[in-house]
């Protein structure tokens, strides 16, 4: 595929997904995985998960891994295309919403819809996590994931510590 076509392909994917982006971008992971790994074959699950990890150790809003997927396919142009495509529709919607803020805030349906959607977005997040875990190379990755999950749950430590621990443990275990 030519670069121009790939950029359009990515732009189309993210503009579509941006309409569905309720409760963060993590619920979008199953659809992104389907696109980049399963359908287009542009990267492996390990690379896909690696980009998400890389974005977490860097500062910034955690949507930036979306830019890395774009970068992987088409360089800087791909990164910018992905980022602008996921942001464009929300940008326009928010400019409109800002002007009708008080009305939306008072609308009782807002609360009901959000409550109703919460279990669905969380379910989609789980599906995304399971996709990434299915890509784990062996039992050592599962062990690391289990240890760090227990730490996230049981302590107030900053997640960066455990992600750093994952890097060190990966080297020590020769994963």
């Amino acid at each position, binding site marked *: 595929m030519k670069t121009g076509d790939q950029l359009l392909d990515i732009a189309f994917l993210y503009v579509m997904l941006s309409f569905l982006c309720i409760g963060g971008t993590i619920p979008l992971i199953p659809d992104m995985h389907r696109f980049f790994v399963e359908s287009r074959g542009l990267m492996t699950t390990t690379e896909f998960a690696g980009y998400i990890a890389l974005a977490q150790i860097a500062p910034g809003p955690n949507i930036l891994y979306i830019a890395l997927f774009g970068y992987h396919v088409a360089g800087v142009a791909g990164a910018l295309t992905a980022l602008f495509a996921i942001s464009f529709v929300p940008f326009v919607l928010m400019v409109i919403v*800002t002007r009708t803020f008080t009305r939306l805030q008072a609308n009782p349906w807002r609360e009901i819809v959000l409550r109703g959607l*919460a279990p669905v977005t969380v379910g989609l997040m789980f599906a995304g996590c399971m996709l990434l875990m299915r890509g784990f190379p062996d039992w050592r990755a599962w062990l690391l994931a289990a240890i760090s999950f227990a730490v996230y749950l049981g302590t107030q430590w900053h997640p960066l510590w455990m992600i750093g621990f994952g890097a060190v443990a990966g080297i020590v275990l020769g994963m």
Partner: protein
Amino acid sequence: MPSADSSPVAEKAQHTLDSYTPSRRALFLAFLQIGVSAFGGALPWGRRILVEDRRWLTSKEFTEIVTVCQAVPGPNMVNLSVFIGTRYHGVVGALIAFAGIVGVPLAILLCLNAVYHHFAYLPAVKSAMTGMAATATSYLLYMSVKMGGSVWKHPLGVLLCVASGALAFFVHWHMALVLLVCGAVGVVIAKKGKL
């Protein structure tokens, strides 16, 4: 997480959304600061910088704005920057705030990515990345559990959550279909007060 410090801040006046308009430059710098200090979720930093440091909004206003941002499709931080930018300086303000929060972190991340790819052939770098991916994935899992919040207290909520996850993972439904079908069920349950 940051500790509560910087006592001189306490003497600054508390503004509200309508009582004070920061300059475009100040707006850009505030969102730039949120962008570069945000590790692992930007919302807590948004609150710290906009409410506690700059005192542009009250804590209550911030929470209300975040709830509205969550009701509109889009990444939360993009929505928040657009909301606040628009409120102060219209569409130009929204662009300024968005550029502030995304620009520098994007440059940092692309550099980091370049460094990673430059050394990716080393076995140690590959091992470190695999290990990091494992712990980062379990952080996403932890975030999902935490985001569930009150969902876990309602049996129907748990059921709907499991069903949505299973339809996406096992049955390979597209997200749009999951949101449409399960979301509709969820809204009906919520309307009846069971969620």
